[in-house]
């Protein structure tokens, strides 16, 4: 009986724009049009691998989701590292802004010269068709290049290692009686120091090599990312509108909604809203509305029902228990 009267007293309230205004009104255009983000698909999921691309999307207020183990401490889930997975809405926003392109699939070898172009020596004017997948003679060249690089690295690291050892000995030379022995060791070190191969520090690259260390390569990335997955249009319109108001958005599956809405960068701010996207003409069951609103109040967030209107705007509605006793 009480439940029934309770639900009868529920009023829906249109959120005034002031409340959903957001931190700052941004234009639809991204701040940095020159940077084209390189996307690559893994099992049809759009992933970003290069740090500069991650920085670029973050500067456009797109958060994404980090999926990989963090190199510094790989065996924990609290902080993750590259790659960054984009939400479908983030991917679509980038392709709409023509700010995304497909990353090429492998290392590039010049077809005509058969030669691997080191970073900085990219014949960028020739365009992407110049390059082909690593195959045939190209691979041998790449292997040779890799071996040479590793050898060079070993030689340089030997020098550093020797310097390290010497400076450690020199630091130890404080008292006069040990000096003699230490000096002897220092000379011996100079003559027969060998840097063990196993001590060679090697880097396990996160992003595929090739374009990574080559700033000019960005010029290659033509904004050619296709629009994928046109369903979920309602979600996209809501996403675009909220982002346009300066909010940061992440997915809200564990809260039973579409997006978690943050007033600023999620690294520093708590989310205020749980956005639930509904087409304007979509019927909803009152039980679902109540369930999601209850959940929202449990986690101290306001649930926003977001419906794109015909004029391109979005109507935001929240539910309030009006305490009529």
């Amino acid at each position, binding site marked *: 009986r009480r439940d029934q009267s309770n639900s009868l007293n529920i009023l829906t309230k249109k959120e005034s724009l002031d409340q959903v205004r957001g931190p700052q009104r941004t234009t639809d255009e991204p701040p940095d049009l020159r940077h084209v983000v390189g996307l690559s698909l893994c099992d049809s999921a759009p992933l970003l691998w290069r740090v500069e691309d991650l920085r670029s999307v*973050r500067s456009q207020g797109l958060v994404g989701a980090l999926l990989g183990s*963090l190199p510094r401490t790989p065996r924990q889930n609290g902080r993750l590292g590259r790659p960054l*997975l984009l939400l479908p809405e983030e991917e679509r926003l980038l392709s709409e802004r023509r700010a995304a392109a497909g990353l090429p699939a492998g290392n590039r070898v010049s077809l005509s010269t058969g030669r691997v172009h080191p970073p900085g020596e990219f014949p960028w004017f020739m365009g992407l068709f110049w390059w082909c997948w690593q195959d045939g003679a190209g*691979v041998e060249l790449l292997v040779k290049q890799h071996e040479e690089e590793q050898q060079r*690295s070993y030689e340089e690291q030997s020098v550093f290692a020797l310097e390290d050892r010497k400076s450690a000995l020199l630091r130890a030379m404080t008292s006069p009686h040990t000096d003699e022995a230490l000096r002897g060791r220092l000379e011996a070190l100079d003559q027969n120091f060998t840097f063990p191969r196993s001590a060679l520090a*090697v880097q396990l690259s996160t992003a595929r090599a090739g374009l990574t260390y080559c700033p000019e390569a960005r010029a290659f990335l033509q904004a050619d990312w296709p629009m994928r997955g046109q369903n979920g249009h309602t979600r996209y319109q809501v996403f675009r509108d909220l982002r346009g108001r300066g909010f940061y958005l992440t*997915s809200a599956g564990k809260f039973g909604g579409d997006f978690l809405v943050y007033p600023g960068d999620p690294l520093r701010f708590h989310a205020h809203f749980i956005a639930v996207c509904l087409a304007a003409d979509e019927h909803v069951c009152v039980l679902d509305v109540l369930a999601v609103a209850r959940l929202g109040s449990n986690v101290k967030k306001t649930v926003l029902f977001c419906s794109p209107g015909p004029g391109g705007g979005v109507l935001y509605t929240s539910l309030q228990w009006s305490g009529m006793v």
Partner: protein
Amino acid sequence: MPPPSEVFAARSRSHKIPVRGQKDFFPDDSEEQRRRLEQTLDEHWSLISEERVERLGNLVKAKWIPSEQMVELQTPAGKFWQTMGFSADGKQHLLPEEALYLMECGSLQVFYRDLPLSIQDGYEKFLSSSTVSLQQYQVFGHLKRLGYVVLRFEPSHTAEQDICTNDRIEEDKCSHGDEEDKKPPESHPTAAPGPGRTWWVTDDLGHQLDHQPVSGCSRWNFSAITFPDVGSTESSTESSSSSLLPPDPCLLPGSLAVGVCNVAPWRQRINLREVKMSSKEQRTEEDKQRHRWDINKDREVQRCRNWTEYRELLVRREGKRKGRLEHLWKREVTPLHDPTQPISTEELLEKISVTQSTDLLEGASSIKGSDEWRICFNVYQPDTVADFKKSNPGKPYSRMCVCSFDGPVPDLRAIKGLALQSGDVPVVFAVVDYGDISFYTFKDFQLPTDVYP
């Protein structure tokens, strides 16, 4: 490649993660907030841009074999070999998800055509619909990072077992069908025998002997005779559960020979899932036990010294009943309960209830497995890692099913099918929401009853 000096220097960098401070609720355009955001972002980008740098001696070298969708080790495996990988044709292999995880941990360097693969190459080459999907790998990595042992679930094994045990059930039904209803009254193995009472005699239990008075000397110590607990989880390590050793011959009538009993079909038919009770439920249960009517507490039954006397008692009681309400039992439809028989309220309610309660496994064997839902991984708890054996991993802690918030919720048919495949190991649904993973499990819920005699 980055300059060697940088790589060399990275060997001695910190392994600590900067602590994140308390988040703010509202942006207030203050200098303080701006500064804190900038600092947090700086830390964030320095963490994100860091590359893995390892000593060559600490790296296990391996080769990607695309035709087999497998990674073959080229140098001896590390500590990870205890919980990952397998040997075949004298070579050590890793599954693609294991190799990718180890690459991410900085323990493994995988080469393809003599060139080292980046983490990106690993994601793009190793993850596919024919191996494991990206979402499945996310779940795998998440659990591995927490320390769990995660192995692929092989559905073929359980499916085969199911088929042959079902056949055996059919056989059992044919041969023993008519003997099944002659069961002795329920007896508690721990109940101490009453003074002067012996239910079974050591020598032949022929029909004739039933009538002879029982000698008081051949009494059994019932507390020493253990009844087999077919449903026990302890005896159910996957190899030894299928058969039950024959009972001690001295407990059997002389002419009876009992061989090894295959209990696997029986285990299939009962709910083996352990009921985990809260302390409150436990008290309720103990209370219930205390109030439950026990046939052994019946004075008249206690006075019976053998089966014959017990049967005579039953006949006597039936006669009594028939004396008064005999006509009720003579029709096609008989009363659900004989009022002369003591019964607890709860049992009576159960007897007269129209809808019987059911559990997840009931009727599950008749459900065809669905393609949409399948178990991906067997998961073993981190504290078992020390004595974990790949050859005999034992019973998993749980089995993982990977799905996403975009997909449907499994229906009862799917849940029953998975529960049957999983046996008495709980099935956990790992729901992937982009970067977030939530774990859910459907549990048989026992409704509390507040009916006491």
